[in-house]
């Protein structure tokens, strides 16, 4: 039984990382109807920003002297990485997506695939393809609760993820920009007529989504120990599946979907075979799209002639 709970803990912490990334997919899709393939690469860049920032702030020095990295510096790393990723997301939107916003839907999709491919390979050039051990921004502490091993890293993942998600929910529900985002996702033309600055709101959407992905990237690095320039490909796809599972365009749905995907993956790896942990996600994708394409919490959109 304790093994089961162990899998649940691991699944939930992985799932909350997927949820953080899925939020970016779902927000962009909700407004632009675009699968932002490059989002997985923003997540990767976020992880690498954290790596370089922590290294330049002397994380090794603290580790060697046996002291833990100060929490304030860790939060600084997190915040700066989120800002870098937000800038990257906004740049991608301005350079690649805005010019094709009014084109037929496949044009932006292919553009997004191209941007994703570009960032992957640029990452391989800049960061080298070798996996890097993630710096100990948090020093691992293990404690046992009834036979289940919980680390402070897993707890930190939950806490950071939950705080960010609550923050996002408040942002989207309580601020003017958030209200503008919701208006845009309902009807972009009507929103424009109501005097909403469409470009600025889309920019804000990319900034917020990308910064959440960067937070996910740092947590992923802490959780999975190593990072590579291609880490965003598979993780990004899984997060996208999470967004679809929850109902794309739906913010609570992305969280639910992320947690479910994380759990499904861990349970498959634990009880079936680790070889199929990646396949289960795609199986879920196929099943959900065929049986309930609007997702668990999504709304059916009737096709009009």
């Amino acid at each position, binding site marked *: 039984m304790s093994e089961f709970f162990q899998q649940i803990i691991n699944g939930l912490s992985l799932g909350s990382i997927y949820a953080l990334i899925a939020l970016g997919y779902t927000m962009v899709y909700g407004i632009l109807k675009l699968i932002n393939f490059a989002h997985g690469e923003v997540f990767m860049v976020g992880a690498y920003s954290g790596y370089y920032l922590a290294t330049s702030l002397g994380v090794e020095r603290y580790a060697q002297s046996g002291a833990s990295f100060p929490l304030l510096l860790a939060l600084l790393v997190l915040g700066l990485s989120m800002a870098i990723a937000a800038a990257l997301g906004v740049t991608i939107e301005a350079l690649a997506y805005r010019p094709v916003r009014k*084109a037929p839907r496949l044009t932006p999709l292919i*553009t997004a*695939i191209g941007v994703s491919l570009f960032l992957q390979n640029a990452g391989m*050039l800049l960061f080298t393809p070798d996996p890097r051990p993630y710096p100990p921004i948090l020093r691992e502490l293990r404690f046992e609760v009834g036979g289940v091993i919980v680390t402070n890293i897993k707890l930190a993942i939950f806490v950071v993820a939950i705080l960010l998600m609550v923050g996002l929910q408040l942002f989207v529900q309580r601020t003017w920009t958030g209200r503008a985002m919701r208006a845009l996702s309902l009807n972009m033309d009507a929103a424009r007529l109501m005097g909403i600055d469409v470009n600025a709101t889309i920019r804000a959407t990319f900034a917020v989504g990308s910064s959440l992905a960067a937070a996910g990237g740092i947590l992923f690095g802490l959780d999975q120990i190593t990072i590579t320039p291609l880490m965003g490909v598979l993780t990004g796809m899984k997060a996208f599946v999470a967004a679809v599972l929850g109902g794309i365009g739906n913010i609570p749905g992305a969280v639910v979907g992320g947690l479910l995907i994380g759990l499904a993956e861990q349970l498959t790896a634990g009880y079936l075979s680790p*070889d199929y942990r990646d*396949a289960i996600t*795609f199986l879920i994708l196929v099943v959900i*799209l065929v049986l309930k394409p609007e997702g668990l919490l999504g709304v059916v959109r009737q096709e009009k002639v």
Partner: protein
Amino acid sequence: MSAPAPRKPRWALRAAVAAAGVAALYAAGLGVQAGLIDYVQRILLISGINVILAVGLNLINGTTGQFSIGHAGFMAVGAYTAAFVGVHLAPHVAAALGAGGVADAVTFNLALLAGAALAGLTGVLVGLPSLRLKGDYLAIVTLGFGEIIRILFNNAQFLGGATGYSGASAAGLPPYTTFFWVFFWVIAVVTLIKNVTFSQTGRSLIAIREDEVAAEAMATPTTRLKVLAFTLSAATAGIAGGLFAHLQGGIRPDDFKFDKSIDMIVMIIVGGLGSISGAVIGGVFVAVSLELMRDLQQYRLVLYALLLVVIMLVRPAGLLGQRELGLEWFKRRRRPTESA
């Protein structure tokens, strides 16, 4: 269509033309093998395989407008099937026909057809549920299926798992893939796809692309036609896979990653989505440009990705758009043609 010629001589003429074409192709193959260095030969063969991939993918992505981004999966099915069937069939065929060129040719083509059949069957299985979806949902589901197929091969121990499959001998799969067979299949596939595209079925496929609801209202059996186009497209990817396997001498699941599907997308995007001649140009373009950029080493894929984005931003319809390059094009060039 002009002279009401009697039936028999036209068939005879066609047979004669076909025979002459095969002979010419065979001669060209001998010439290429004798006259060109291996490097150029390899680019030619890869171009041919790319053309098959591109023309096949264009039928579903371009003509029918149902976007698949997981075709590497079907290529993998074809490649593995052809390799496996080839290895196991070769002794039997050699026993029946006597070892030699004829037996090799028979084995190879049977293996390719088996690969096409199984890839087509996979296409039906994937297409039936997923073609209910539209646009980017369909795209993402084909991507999911492509990944599932790859992961299955990765775990199929009798096919070598992650290390790949190269038959029983240490030398790998027999190098059946020659200039003659590649371009024989290029001509066969292009002719098939062209005939489908310009038939009544093809018109219906275009109708589905332009407006599926309207097509349905006109009593077009949209689901059946979409599955048909998808299957045909998967089968051609299977043939390309079989040719690829016997060119490489061995195949690994990693040969058929998402990147491969993107390569195919680039081919049909460069030439122009919905144009057969565009797909041919795109297939050759990708083979040649990736080879020419080989000197740039690690910058190659960055440039390649950048190219994809720039094409989308500058000329999203591709080189030809939906037009076809052919004799008529030269004749009618003056008139602004309204493409379907």
